[in-house]
């Protein structure tokens, strides 16, 4: 511990002067000045009392916690201004929380006022072992290899290597269960299609009520689903709902732009779009009826439903897919066919050439 003797001595020989490596001389440690509690016995006594008071409150609060735990009934409530909480939970939290806080405050106050506050330097040492230790380790290793007889009976070493390599195989193959292989055929059956089909009625979500065009007013928004969603249950229902959800809106035909290729996709200003954001797939139904803007709550992507679902703001890269609709013999709104493009967020193999009209 010989090197420790110089530590804490301001301006001592610890300062290194080496023009090349340290162009600026090490200033060393700041001069140590005594605190009030170092020179004034009364101040030190006062700090001691303060620390002891904080520590002394901890047992009181801890016992208070135990008393509250058994004494306060679980159905009592504190109702005070904006605060409404279970009395027991509130008091348990207050007693234990304050106990922890006072323990910490006492410890910090003790360290700041009364413990020795001289600063010290502890130099880092080289991380490498000494040569003696290295040589000892290597001879030990040679001895172990020799004793294991692996150098003479090589077959053990080779089979062990093969065993270790192949034992990883089951783990890797098991990863295949994370989902189906995304082959072209599989994609066409799953993420590239929904349960919308020719003649499937557009029904209101929750109530599954079919809709007639004359029931929809200008400025109306309907959160809708395909009628055949009702036939599904469990996870299948959730998976298909997550892809097939649509919104039906009616806008004044004179105030919107309908591309010529989509002229036949709508009924007098009634348009049907996918409800699933093309950015990361949040369901969107925040629609401003006067601006015709549909705003995604997750990342503020904004789509103009009065202009073929174009992105007008935000991180979404593609317009919202539109569902071609018409009416059936009874006058209810039905889909002409499934979406022409996959709905929802992008994926690696997605063909994105047909998104814009």
């Amino acid at each position, binding site marked *: 511990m010989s090197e420790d003797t110089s530590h804490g001595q301001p301006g001592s020989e610890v300062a290194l002067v080496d023009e090349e490596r340290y162009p600026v001389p090490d200033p060393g440690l700041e001069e140590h000045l005594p605190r009030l509690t170092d020179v004034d016995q009364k101040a030190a006594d006062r700090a001691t009392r303060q620390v002891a008071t904080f520590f002394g409150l901890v047992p009181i609060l801890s016992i208070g916690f135990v008393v509250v735990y058994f004494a306060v009934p679980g159905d009592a409530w504190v109702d005070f201004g904006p605060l*409404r909480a279970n009395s027991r939970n509130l008091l348990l939290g207050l007693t234990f929380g304050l106990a922890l806080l006072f323990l910490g405050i006492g410890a910090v106050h003790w360290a700041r006022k009364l413990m020795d506050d001289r600063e010290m330097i502890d130099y880092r040492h080289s991380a490498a072992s000494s040569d003696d230790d290295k040589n000892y380790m290597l001879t030990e290793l040679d001895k172990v290899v020799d004793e294991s007889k692996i150098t003479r009976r090589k077959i053990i070493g080779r089979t062990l290597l093969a065993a270790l390599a192949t034992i990883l195989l089951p783990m890797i193959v098991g990863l295949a269960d994370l989902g189906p292989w995304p082959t072209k055929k599989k994609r066409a059956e799953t993420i590239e299609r929904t349960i919308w089909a020719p003649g499937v009625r557009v029904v209101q979500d929750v109530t599954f009520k079919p809709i007639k065009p004359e029931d929809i007013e200008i*400025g109306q*928004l309907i959160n809708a689903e395909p009628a055949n969603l009702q036939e599904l249950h469990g996870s299948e229902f959730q998976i298909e709902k997550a892809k097939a959800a649509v919104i039906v809106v009616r806008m004044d035909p004179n105030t919107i732009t309908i591309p010529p290729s989509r002229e036949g996709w709508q009924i007098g200003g009634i348009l049907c779009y996918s409800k699933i954001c093309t950015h990361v797939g949040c369901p969107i139904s925040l629609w401003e*009826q006067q*601006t015709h803007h549909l705003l995604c709550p997750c990342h503020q992507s904004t789509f103009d439903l009065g202009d073929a679902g174009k992105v007008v703001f935000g991180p979404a890269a593609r317009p919202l897919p539109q569902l071609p609709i018409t009416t059936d013999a009874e006058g209810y709104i039905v889909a002409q066919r499934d979406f022409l493009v996959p709905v929802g967020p992008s994926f690696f193999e997605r063909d994105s050439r047909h998104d814009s009209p």
Partner: protein
Amino acid sequence: MRLLSSRRRHPAAKALLLVFGLFMMGALYSVIAPPAQVSADTGNSQQIAEGKALFAVGCASCHGLNGEGQTSGVIQGPPLAGVGAAAVDFQVSTGRMPMAKPGEQAPVKPNRYSEEEIAALGAYVASLGPGPAIPEPAEYEPANLSAEDLARGGELFRTNCSACHNFEGAGGALPNGKYAPPLIGLDHKRIYLAMLTGPQQMPVFSDEVLTPEDKRAIIGYLDSLHEQPASGGFALGGLGPVSEGLWAWIIGLGSLIFFAMWIAAKGVKAK
């Protein structure tokens, strides 16, 4: 009784009896007869005329003298043919209309019109073109709703309303300074009218698609939701991550920073 029987042939007896009889009939009628209703009766031409006069004073500067609307210039207002008496009732009774100045959104302010005046305005606007009428209390008062109805109302609310009005109906922000107002403690009729007419940026939810029963279920759900006490301590307005995050960053992290600074600070020296 002797006084009455001795005066029964007095010349004034007949007249007094007649007055008494008429008074009794009047009193009886006022008890039995239905109270006069204030409503936008489209057939009442006098009400329409009163409404037109009020319209010319309070509304025409933006909506045009005949409610045809103004779509260009600094002061704009949408055409009102087809918005119906329901829209007038909602906009005027909440003080949103007439607007004090042009802006992104008409704020709620004290209403200066009487019920009769609103009904007259409604009758006039309804005469411009067919639109939704003011609903009867039976349509919007959520009485006798079963637990199943409330659950359905909740599902409908989360599907159709929560995107803008937040999961608790606490309201929310929209682009360019617009906002969805909070739905807490509102008149049932007001919520119904808003769904029916789609004021400002809010979409319309017509009775044919979202039926009056569905709307009642939503109103009943909102009541049941807001009657429940927030039992988790400070609810922070029920705004979710916004107010909770603000609290955590300012109060939570702020106090941690305070303690870190206190621990590391150099204390007072003796000289």
